[in-house]
Protein backbone atom coordinates (compact mmCIF):
# COMPACT_ATOMS: atom_id res chain seq x y z
CA UNK A 1 0.00 0.00 0.00
CA UNK A 2 2.97 2.28 0.62
CA UNK A 3 3.74 2.14 -3.12
CA UNK A 4 0.19 3.19 -4.02
CA UNK A 5 0.31 6.04 -1.50
CA UNK A 6 3.68 7.19 -2.83
CA UNK A 7 2.40 7.08 -6.43
CA UNK A 8 -0.70 9.05 -5.41
CA UNK A 9 1.49 11.64 -3.68
CA UNK A 10 3.75 11.88 -6.73
CA UNK A 11 0.79 12.31 -9.13
CA UNK A 12 -0.74 15.05 -6.97
CA UNK A 13 2.57 16.81 -6.34
CA UNK A 14 3.51 16.81 -10.04
CA UNK A 15 0.05 18.06 -11.05
CA UNK A 16 0.38 20.81 -8.43
CA UNK A 17 3.86 21.91 -9.50
CA UNK A 18 3.10 21.80 -13.23
CA UNK A 19 -0.05 23.88 -12.84
CA UNK A 20 1.31 26.28 -10.21
CA UNK A 21 2.54 28.93 -12.71
CA UNK A 22 -0.91 28.94 -14.33
CA UNK A 23 -2.59 29.53 -10.97
CA UNK A 24 -0.54 32.70 -10.63
CA UNK A 25 -1.70 34.09 -13.97
CA UNK A 26 -5.22 32.60 -14.15
CA UNK A 27 -7.43 33.20 -11.14
CA UNK A 28 -10.05 30.65 -12.16
CA UNK A 29 -7.53 27.79 -12.03
CA UNK A 30 -6.46 28.49 -8.44
CA UNK A 31 -9.04 26.33 -6.67
CA UNK A 32 -7.93 23.12 -8.34
CA UNK A 33 -4.24 23.99 -8.10
CA UNK A 34 -4.59 24.59 -4.37
CA UNK A 35 -6.78 21.47 -4.19
CA UNK A 36 -4.06 19.25 -5.66
CA UNK A 37 -1.50 20.88 -3.33
CA UNK A 38 -3.68 20.26 -0.28
CA UNK A 39 -4.35 16.72 -1.51
CA UNK A 40 -0.60 16.09 -1.85
CA UNK A 41 -0.12 17.43 1.66
CA UNK A 42 -2.83 15.07 2.98
CA UNK A 43 -1.08 12.07 1.40
CA UNK A 44 2.26 13.36 2.71
CA UNK A 45 0.96 13.03 6.27
CA UNK A 46 0.40 9.29 5.77
CA UNK A 47 4.04 8.71 6.61
CA UNK A 48 5.25 7.01 3.47
CA UNK A 49 7.52 9.91 2.49
CA UNK A 50 8.54 11.12 5.96
CA UNK A 51 7.82 8.89 9.01
CA UNK A 52 4.62 9.89 10.79
CA UNK A 53 6.42 10.09 14.13
CA UNK A 54 8.52 12.97 12.84
CA UNK A 55 5.49 14.83 11.57
CA UNK A 56 3.32 14.14 14.62
CA UNK A 57 6.02 14.98 17.18
CA UNK A 58 5.79 18.79 16.78
CA UNK A 59 2.01 18.42 17.32
CA UNK A 60 2.54 16.67 20.64
CA UNK A 61 2.82 13.11 19.41
CA UNK A 62 -0.83 12.33 20.20
CA UNK A 63 -1.86 11.38 16.67
CA UNK A 64 -3.32 14.81 16.01
CA UNK A 65 -1.76 14.33 12.58
CA UNK A 66 -4.64 11.97 11.75
CA UNK A 67 -7.18 14.74 12.27
CA UNK A 68 -5.13 17.12 10.13
CA UNK A 69 -4.84 14.45 7.45
CA UNK A 70 -8.59 13.86 7.18
CA UNK A 71 -9.31 17.61 7.29
CA UNK A 72 -6.87 18.20 4.43
CA UNK A 73 -8.47 15.40 2.42
CA UNK A 74 -11.92 16.98 2.88
CA UNK A 75 -10.64 20.43 1.93
CA UNK A 76 -8.88 19.06 -1.19
CA UNK A 77 -12.00 17.31 -2.49
CA UNK A 78 -14.15 20.33 -1.61
CA UNK A 79 -11.85 22.65 -3.60
CA UNK A 80 -12.28 20.36 -6.61
CA UNK A 81 -16.04 20.24 -6.12
CA UNK A 82 -16.22 24.01 -5.70
CA UNK A 83 -14.28 24.53 -8.95
CA UNK A 84 -16.61 22.15 -10.80
CA UNK A 85 -19.71 23.80 -9.33
CA UNK A 86 -18.62 27.34 -10.26
CA UNK A 87 -17.99 26.16 -13.83
CA UNK A 88 -21.52 24.78 -14.09
CA UNK A 89 -24.23 27.44 -13.94
CA UNK A 90 -26.93 24.84 -13.26
CA UNK A 91 -25.12 23.20 -10.33
CA UNK A 92 -26.38 23.97 -6.83
CA UNK A 93 -23.83 25.97 -4.83
CA UNK A 94 -22.31 24.60 -1.61
CA UNK A 95 -22.62 26.83 1.41
CA UNK A 96 -19.06 27.47 2.73
CA UNK A 97 -20.38 27.53 6.31
CA UNK A 98 -21.80 24.02 5.88
CA UNK A 99 -18.47 22.86 4.46
CA UNK A 100 -16.61 24.43 7.39
CA UNK A 101 -18.93 22.58 9.78
CA UNK A 102 -18.35 19.32 7.88
CA UNK A 103 -14.58 19.77 8.20
CA UNK A 104 -14.65 20.89 11.84
CA UNK A 105 -17.29 18.54 13.26
CA UNK A 106 -15.18 15.33 13.28
CA UNK A 107 -12.69 17.11 15.57
CA UNK A 108 -15.15 16.92 18.52
CA UNK A 109 -15.34 13.11 18.78
CA UNK A 110 -11.67 12.89 17.74
CA UNK A 111 -10.57 14.81 20.82
CA UNK A 112 -12.65 12.46 22.99
CA UNK A 113 -10.79 9.35 21.85
CA UNK A 114 -8.79 7.82 24.69
CA UNK A 115 -5.27 7.51 23.32
CA UNK A 116 -1.74 6.56 24.17
CA UNK A 117 1.10 9.06 24.11
CA UNK A 118 2.79 7.58 21.07
CA UNK A 119 2.23 8.16 17.40
CA UNK A 120 0.59 5.13 15.83
CA UNK A 121 0.23 4.70 12.09
CA UNK A 122 -2.82 2.49 12.73
CA UNK A 123 -4.24 4.82 15.34
CA UNK A 124 -7.79 4.77 13.99
CA UNK A 125 -7.86 1.03 13.32
CA UNK A 126 -6.56 0.34 16.84
CA UNK A 127 -9.18 2.57 18.48
CA UNK A 128 -12.19 2.11 16.22
CA UNK A 129 -14.01 0.11 18.89
CA UNK A 130 -14.25 3.30 20.93
CA UNK A 131 -17.50 5.07 20.12
CA UNK A 132 -15.86 8.53 19.67
CA UNK A 133 -13.38 7.04 17.17
CA UNK A 134 -16.19 5.40 15.22
CA UNK A 135 -18.18 8.65 15.32
CA UNK A 136 -15.16 10.65 14.14
CA UNK A 137 -14.56 8.26 11.24
CA UNK A 138 -18.26 8.21 10.35
CA UNK A 139 -18.54 12.01 10.24
CA UNK A 140 -15.40 12.24 8.15
CA UNK A 141 -16.42 9.51 5.70
CA UNK A 142 -19.96 10.88 5.36
CA UNK A 143 -18.60 14.36 4.58
CA UNK A 144 -16.09 12.91 2.12
CA UNK A 145 -18.75 10.89 0.33
CA UNK A 146 -21.13 13.88 0.22
CA UNK A 147 -18.54 16.30 -1.23
CA UNK A 148 -17.32 13.70 -3.75
CA UNK A 149 -20.95 13.15 -4.80
CA UNK A 150 -21.40 16.89 -5.34
CA UNK A 151 -18.25 16.87 -7.47
CA UNK A 152 -19.64 13.96 -9.50
CA UNK A 153 -23.02 15.66 -9.97
CA UNK A 154 -21.43 18.94 -11.11
CA UNK A 155 -19.74 17.01 -13.93
CA UNK A 156 -22.64 14.73 -14.82
CA UNK A 157 -23.43 16.28 -18.21
CA UNK A 158 -19.81 16.82 -19.18
CA UNK A 159 -18.52 14.25 -21.66
CA UNK A 160 -14.90 15.38 -21.93
CA UNK A 161 -12.21 12.80 -21.15
CA UNK A 162 -11.08 14.80 -18.13
CA UNK A 163 -14.66 14.92 -16.83
CA UNK A 164 -15.06 11.16 -17.16
CA UNK A 165 -11.84 10.57 -15.22
CA UNK A 166 -12.83 13.01 -12.50
CA UNK A 167 -16.30 11.43 -12.27
CA UNK A 168 -14.72 7.97 -12.06
CA UNK A 169 -12.37 9.19 -9.33
CA UNK A 170 -15.21 10.83 -7.37
CA UNK A 171 -17.31 7.66 -7.66
CA UNK A 172 -14.37 5.60 -6.39
CA UNK A 173 -14.01 7.89 -3.37
CA UNK A 174 -17.72 7.50 -2.56
CA UNK A 175 -17.49 3.71 -2.88
CA UNK A 176 -14.30 3.64 -0.79
CA UNK A 177 -16.02 5.71 1.92
CA UNK A 178 -18.92 3.25 2.04
CA UNK A 179 -16.51 0.29 2.24
CA UNK A 180 -14.52 1.88 5.06
CA UNK A 181 -17.67 2.86 6.94
CA UNK A 182 -18.90 -0.74 6.65
CA UNK A 183 -15.54 -1.99 7.89
CA UNK A 184 -15.52 0.32 10.94
CA UNK A 185 -19.15 -0.41 11.79
CA UNK A 186 -18.58 -4.17 11.66
CA UNK A 187 -15.64 -3.73 14.01
CA UNK A 188 -17.57 -1.51 16.39
CA UNK A 189 -20.52 -3.84 16.76
CA UNK A 190 -18.82 -7.22 16.49
CA UNK A 191 -15.84 -6.17 18.58
CA UNK A 192 -13.64 -8.05 16.18
CA UNK A 193 -9.95 -7.31 16.18
CA UNK A 194 -7.79 -6.74 14.33
CA UNK A 195 -9.45 -4.94 11.42
CA UNK A 196 -11.15 -6.84 8.67
CA UNK A 197 -8.16 -6.97 6.33
CA UNK A 198 -10.09 -7.54 3.10
CA UNK A 199 -12.30 -4.45 3.54
CA UNK A 200 -9.38 -2.36 4.68
CA UNK A 201 -7.26 -3.36 1.68
CA UNK A 202 -10.19 -2.77 -0.68
CA UNK A 203 -10.75 0.70 0.79
CA UNK A 204 -7.11 1.65 0.31
CA UNK A 205 -7.04 0.35 -3.26
CA UNK A 206 -10.29 2.02 -4.32
CA UNK A 207 -9.58 5.29 -2.49
CA UNK A 208 -6.06 5.92 -3.72
CA UNK A 209 -6.81 4.77 -7.25
CA UNK A 210 -9.81 7.14 -7.15
CA UNK A 211 -7.59 10.06 -6.11
CA UNK A 212 -5.08 9.16 -8.85
CA UNK A 213 -7.84 8.90 -11.46
CA UNK A 214 -9.27 12.25 -10.41
CA UNK A 215 -5.84 13.86 -10.69
CA UNK A 216 -5.36 12.26 -14.10
CA UNK A 217 -8.64 13.96 -15.09
CA UNK A 218 -7.06 17.30 -14.26
CA UNK A 219 -3.96 16.29 -16.23
CA UNK A 220 -6.23 15.36 -19.18
CA UNK A 221 -7.85 18.81 -19.09
CA UNK A 222 -4.44 20.49 -18.96
CA UNK A 223 -3.13 18.38 -21.86
CA UNK A 224 -6.23 18.86 -24.04
CA UNK A 225 -6.07 22.62 -23.58
CA UNK A 226 -2.34 22.75 -24.24
CA UNK A 227 -2.65 20.59 -27.37
CA UNK A 228 -5.47 22.78 -28.70
CA UNK A 229 -3.46 25.95 -28.12
CA UNK A 230 -0.49 24.36 -29.86
CA UNK A 231 -2.61 23.17 -32.79
CA UNK A 232 -4.47 26.37 -33.75
CA UNK A 233 -1.56 28.32 -35.29
CA UNK A 234 -0.26 25.17 -36.99
CA UNK A 235 -3.62 24.24 -38.51
CA UNK A 236 -4.08 27.83 -39.67
CA UNK A 237 -0.63 27.85 -41.22
CA UNK A 238 -1.21 24.49 -42.90
CA UNK A 239 -4.53 25.50 -44.45
CA UNK A 240 -3.07 28.81 -45.58
CA UNK A 241 0.01 27.10 -47.04
CA UNK A 242 -2.25 24.77 -49.00
CA UNK A 243 -3.61 27.80 -50.81
CA UNK A 244 -7.09 27.33 -49.43
CA UNK A 245 -7.14 30.85 -47.98
CA UNK A 246 -7.64 32.25 -51.46
CA UNK A 247 -11.27 31.20 -51.44
CA UNK A 248 -12.15 33.77 -48.81
CA UNK A 249 -14.44 36.66 -49.61
CA UNK A 250 -13.03 40.16 -49.70
CA UNK A 251 -16.01 41.37 -47.67
CA UNK A 252 -14.94 39.76 -44.46
CA UNK A 253 -14.39 41.27 -41.06
CA UNK A 254 -11.03 41.61 -39.42
CA UNK A 255 -10.31 38.57 -37.25
CA UNK A 256 -9.12 39.68 -33.80
CA UNK A 257 -7.44 36.35 -33.02
CA UNK A 258 -5.87 33.33 -34.69
CA UNK A 259 -8.91 31.33 -33.70
CA UNK A 260 -11.16 33.92 -35.37
CA UNK A 261 -8.96 33.83 -38.45
CA UNK A 262 -9.24 30.05 -38.50
CA UNK A 263 -13.02 30.31 -38.19
CA UNK A 264 -13.29 32.60 -41.22
CA UNK A 265 -11.01 30.31 -43.17
CA UNK A 266 -12.94 27.12 -42.35
CA UNK A 267 -16.24 28.74 -43.37
CA UNK A 268 -14.71 29.80 -46.68
CA UNK A 269 -13.29 26.32 -47.27
CA UNK A 270 -16.57 24.65 -46.30
CA UNK A 271 -18.39 26.95 -48.73
CA UNK A 272 -15.96 25.90 -51.42
CA UNK A 273 -16.57 22.22 -50.69
CA UNK A 274 -20.38 22.56 -50.55
CA UNK A 275 -20.48 24.46 -53.82
CA UNK A 276 -18.16 21.98 -55.50
CA UNK A 277 -15.58 24.67 -56.24
CA UNK A 278 -13.01 23.14 -53.91
CA UNK A 279 -11.80 19.58 -53.46
CA UNK A 280 -9.68 18.59 -50.49
CA UNK A 281 -7.51 15.52 -50.13
CA UNK A 282 -7.79 13.26 -47.07
CA UNK A 283 -5.10 15.08 -45.13
CA UNK A 284 -6.65 18.48 -45.77
CA UNK A 285 -10.08 17.16 -44.81
CA UNK A 286 -8.71 15.78 -41.54
CA UNK A 287 -7.14 19.14 -40.81
CA UNK A 288 -10.39 20.94 -41.63
CA UNK A 289 -12.41 18.61 -39.38
CA UNK A 290 -9.97 19.18 -36.53
CA UNK A 291 -10.22 22.95 -37.02
CA UNK A 292 -14.03 22.77 -37.04
CA UNK A 293 -14.05 20.72 -33.83
CA UNK A 294 -11.79 23.25 -32.10
CA UNK A 295 -14.05 26.11 -33.20
CA UNK A 296 -17.23 24.26 -32.18
CA UNK A 297 -15.68 23.67 -28.76
CA UNK A 298 -14.99 27.37 -28.43
CA UNK A 299 -18.52 28.28 -29.56
CA UNK A 300 -20.15 26.04 -26.95
CA UNK A 301 -23.42 26.07 -28.91
CA UNK A 302 -26.31 23.68 -28.32
CA UNK A 303 -26.53 23.01 -32.05
CA UNK A 304 -25.69 19.46 -33.03
CA UNK A 305 -24.28 17.84 -36.11
CA UNK A 306 -26.36 15.03 -37.53
CA UNK A 307 -29.49 15.35 -35.38
CA UNK A 308 -32.60 17.18 -36.59
CA UNK A 309 -33.68 19.69 -33.95
CA UNK A 310 -36.14 22.56 -33.77
CA UNK A 311 -35.72 25.44 -31.31
CA UNK A 312 -38.14 28.33 -31.01
CA UNK A 313 -36.90 31.71 -29.79
CA UNK A 314 -39.79 33.86 -28.67
CA UNK A 315 -37.77 36.87 -27.61
CA UNK A 316 -39.05 36.55 -24.05
CA UNK A 317 -35.56 35.86 -22.74
CA UNK A 318 -34.55 39.34 -23.89
CA UNK A 319 -35.60 42.23 -21.68
Amino acid at each position, binding site marked *: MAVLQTVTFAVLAIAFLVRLPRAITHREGRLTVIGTGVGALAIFTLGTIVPQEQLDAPLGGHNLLKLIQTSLALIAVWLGAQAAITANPTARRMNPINVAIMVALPAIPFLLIQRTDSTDKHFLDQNIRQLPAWLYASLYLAALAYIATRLFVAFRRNRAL*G*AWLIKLGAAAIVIASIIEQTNFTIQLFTRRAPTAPLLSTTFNLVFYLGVCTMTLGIVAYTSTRAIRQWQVPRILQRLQNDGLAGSQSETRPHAPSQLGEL*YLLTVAIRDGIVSGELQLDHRQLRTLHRAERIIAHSLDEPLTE*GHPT*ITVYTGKATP
Partner: protein
Amino acid sequence: MSLTPEPPAGDRTDSIARDVHAAITAGGLNGLPTLAAIIDRVATLHGKPIRLEQVGDAEWGSLTGLWVETPAVSRIFTRRTDPVAYQVVCALHEVMHILLNHPSCLPTISELGLSLPPGARRARNAGSAFISRVQASYESEAEFGARVLAQALLHGLEDPVERRFG
Protein backbone atom coordinates in the same frame (compact mmCIF):
# COMPACT_ATOMS: atom_id res chain seq x y z
CA MET B 1 -26.70 34.65 -51.32
CA SER B 2 -23.13 33.87 -52.12
CA LEU B 3 -20.16 33.74 -49.87
CA THR B 4 -17.97 34.98 -52.67
CA PRO B 5 -19.97 37.56 -54.55
CA GLU B 6 -18.42 39.86 -57.05
CA PRO B 7 -15.49 41.43 -55.25
CA PRO B 8 -16.76 44.79 -54.11
CA ALA B 9 -14.72 47.91 -54.31
CA GLY B 10 -12.89 48.98 -51.16
CA ASP B 11 -15.27 51.82 -50.41
CA ARG B 12 -18.21 49.46 -50.82
CA THR B 13 -16.64 47.03 -48.34
CA ASP B 14 -16.16 49.90 -45.91
CA SER B 15 -19.76 50.92 -46.37
CA ILE B 16 -20.99 47.36 -45.77
CA ALA B 17 -18.86 47.11 -42.64
CA ARG B 18 -20.12 50.46 -41.38
CA ASP B 19 -23.79 49.65 -42.01
CA VAL B 20 -23.56 46.19 -40.52
CA HIS B 21 -21.74 47.33 -37.39
CA ALA B 22 -24.29 50.11 -36.95
CA ALA B 23 -27.17 47.63 -37.25
CA ILE B 24 -25.55 45.23 -34.78
CA THR B 25 -24.97 48.02 -32.29
CA ALA B 26 -28.46 49.49 -32.74
CA GLY B 27 -29.96 46.02 -32.31
CA GLY B 28 -28.08 45.51 -29.04
CA LEU B 29 -26.38 42.36 -30.31
CA ASN B 30 -22.89 43.34 -29.17
CA GLY B 31 -21.66 41.16 -26.35
CA LEU B 32 -24.40 38.55 -26.57
CA PRO B 33 -22.64 35.31 -25.67
CA THR B 34 -24.57 32.67 -27.61
CA LEU B 35 -26.39 32.08 -30.86
CA ALA B 36 -29.54 31.52 -28.81
CA ALA B 37 -29.21 34.93 -27.14
CA ILE B 38 -28.72 36.63 -30.52
CA ILE B 39 -31.72 34.93 -32.12
CA ASP B 40 -33.83 35.68 -29.08
CA ARG B 41 -32.87 39.35 -29.25
CA VAL B 42 -33.63 39.56 -32.97
CA ALA B 43 -36.99 37.84 -32.36
CA THR B 44 -37.80 40.68 -29.95
CA LEU B 45 -36.80 43.31 -32.50
CA HIS B 46 -38.66 41.48 -35.26
CA GLY B 47 -41.78 41.17 -33.13
CA LYS B 48 -42.24 37.53 -33.99
CA PRO B 49 -40.84 34.21 -32.73
CA ILE B 50 -37.94 32.78 -34.70
CA ARG B 51 -37.76 29.04 -35.14
CA LEU B 52 -34.32 27.54 -35.81
CA GLU B 53 -34.69 24.21 -37.57
CA GLN B 54 -31.84 21.84 -38.29
CA VAL B 55 -33.02 19.83 -41.25
CA GLY B 56 -31.42 17.46 -43.67
CA ASP B 57 -32.05 17.53 -47.37
CA ALA B 58 -29.61 16.17 -49.91
CA GLU B 59 -31.45 18.10 -52.61
CA TRP B 60 -30.44 21.39 -51.06
CA GLY B 61 -27.21 21.27 -53.03
CA SER B 62 -25.17 24.38 -52.31
CA LEU B 63 -27.96 26.01 -50.31
CA THR B 64 -26.80 26.13 -46.67
CA GLY B 65 -29.31 28.37 -44.95
CA LEU B 66 -32.86 29.51 -45.55
CA TRP B 67 -35.18 32.15 -44.13
CA VAL B 68 -38.89 31.47 -44.47
CA GLU B 69 -41.38 34.08 -43.32
CA THR B 70 -44.88 33.04 -42.22
CA PRO B 71 -47.56 35.19 -40.54
CA ALA B 72 -46.95 33.62 -37.13
CA VAL B 73 -43.27 32.77 -37.09
CA SER B 74 -39.96 33.35 -38.88
CA ARG B 75 -38.22 30.11 -39.72
CA ILE B 76 -34.48 29.68 -40.18
CA PHE B 77 -33.21 26.42 -41.62
CA THR B 78 -29.70 25.05 -41.49
CA ARG B 79 -28.44 21.69 -42.72
CA ARG B 80 -28.02 19.31 -39.82
CA THR B 81 -25.27 17.43 -41.64
CA ASP B 82 -23.03 20.48 -41.73
CA PRO B 83 -20.43 21.04 -38.98
CA VAL B 84 -21.76 23.01 -36.03
CA ALA B 85 -19.35 25.93 -36.56
CA TYR B 86 -20.55 26.24 -40.16
CA GLN B 87 -24.24 25.97 -39.21
CA VAL B 88 -23.77 28.83 -36.74
CA VAL B 89 -22.57 31.15 -39.52
CA CYS B 90 -25.38 29.99 -41.83
CA ALA B 91 -27.99 30.63 -39.13
CA LEU B 92 -26.48 34.03 -38.31
CA HIS B 93 -26.53 34.90 -42.00
CA GLU B 94 -30.31 34.50 -42.02
CA VAL B 95 -30.59 36.31 -38.68
CA MET B 96 -28.78 39.27 -40.26
CA HIS B 97 -31.26 39.31 -43.14
CA ILE B 98 -34.06 39.57 -40.59
CA LEU B 99 -32.24 42.22 -38.58
CA LEU B 100 -31.50 44.29 -41.68
CA ASN B 101 -35.02 43.73 -42.95
CA HIS B 102 -33.79 42.66 -46.37
CA PRO B 103 -36.38 42.19 -49.11
CA SER B 104 -37.26 38.81 -50.47
CA CYS B 105 -35.09 37.33 -53.19
CA LEU B 106 -37.69 34.73 -54.11
CA PRO B 107 -37.18 34.99 -57.89
CA THR B 108 -33.51 34.25 -57.35
CA ILE B 109 -34.24 31.38 -54.99
CA SER B 110 -36.61 29.85 -57.49
CA GLU B 111 -33.76 29.73 -60.00
CA LEU B 112 -32.07 27.19 -57.75
CA GLY B 113 -34.69 24.72 -58.92
CA LEU B 114 -35.50 23.52 -55.42
CA SER B 115 -38.94 23.00 -53.96
CA LEU B 116 -38.81 25.38 -51.03
CA PRO B 117 -41.51 25.99 -48.40
CA PRO B 118 -44.07 28.74 -49.04
CA GLY B 119 -42.81 32.03 -47.67
CA ALA B 120 -39.18 31.33 -48.54
CA ARG B 121 -37.57 34.73 -48.48
CA ARG B 122 -33.80 34.49 -48.67
CA ALA B 123 -31.30 31.67 -48.93
CA ARG B 124 -27.61 31.37 -48.25
CA ASN B 125 -25.87 29.76 -51.17
CA ALA B 126 -22.33 28.47 -50.75
CA GLY B 127 -21.76 28.87 -54.49
CA SER B 128 -21.55 32.04 -56.51
CA ALA B 129 -24.25 31.29 -59.08
CA PHE B 130 -27.64 32.98 -59.39
CA ILE B 131 -26.68 36.30 -58.01
CA SER B 132 -27.31 39.77 -59.27
CA ARG B 133 -25.31 42.79 -58.16
CA VAL B 134 -28.19 44.06 -56.03
CA GLN B 135 -28.70 40.71 -54.36
CA ALA B 136 -24.96 40.41 -53.84
CA SER B 137 -25.03 43.57 -51.79
CA TYR B 138 -27.71 42.17 -49.46
CA GLU B 139 -25.88 38.87 -49.23
CA SER B 140 -22.57 40.56 -48.53
CA GLU B 141 -24.15 42.52 -45.69
CA ALA B 142 -25.73 39.39 -44.20
CA GLU B 143 -22.54 37.36 -44.55
CA PHE B 144 -20.34 40.11 -43.16
CA GLY B 145 -22.65 40.49 -40.17
CA ALA B 146 -22.83 36.73 -39.67
CA ARG B 147 -19.06 36.52 -39.47
CA VAL B 148 -18.77 39.49 -37.13
CA LEU B 149 -21.32 37.90 -34.79
CA ALA B 150 -19.86 34.39 -35.12
CA GLN B 151 -16.41 35.61 -34.16
CA ALA B 152 -17.83 37.39 -31.16
CA LEU B 153 -19.31 34.06 -30.03
CA LEU B 154 -15.88 32.44 -29.76
CA HIS B 155 -15.12 31.96 -26.08
CA GLY B 156 -11.42 31.40 -26.64
CA LEU B 157 -9.66 28.08 -26.55
CA GLU B 158 -10.77 27.16 -23.04
CA ASP B 159 -14.24 26.34 -21.82
CA PRO B 160 -15.25 27.27 -18.25
CA VAL B 161 -14.28 23.84 -16.91
CA GLU B 162 -10.87 23.95 -18.62
CA ARG B 163 -10.21 27.37 -17.19
CA ARG B 164 -10.57 25.78 -13.74
CA PHE B 165 -9.19 22.27 -14.30
CA GLY B 166 -6.89 22.76 -17.28
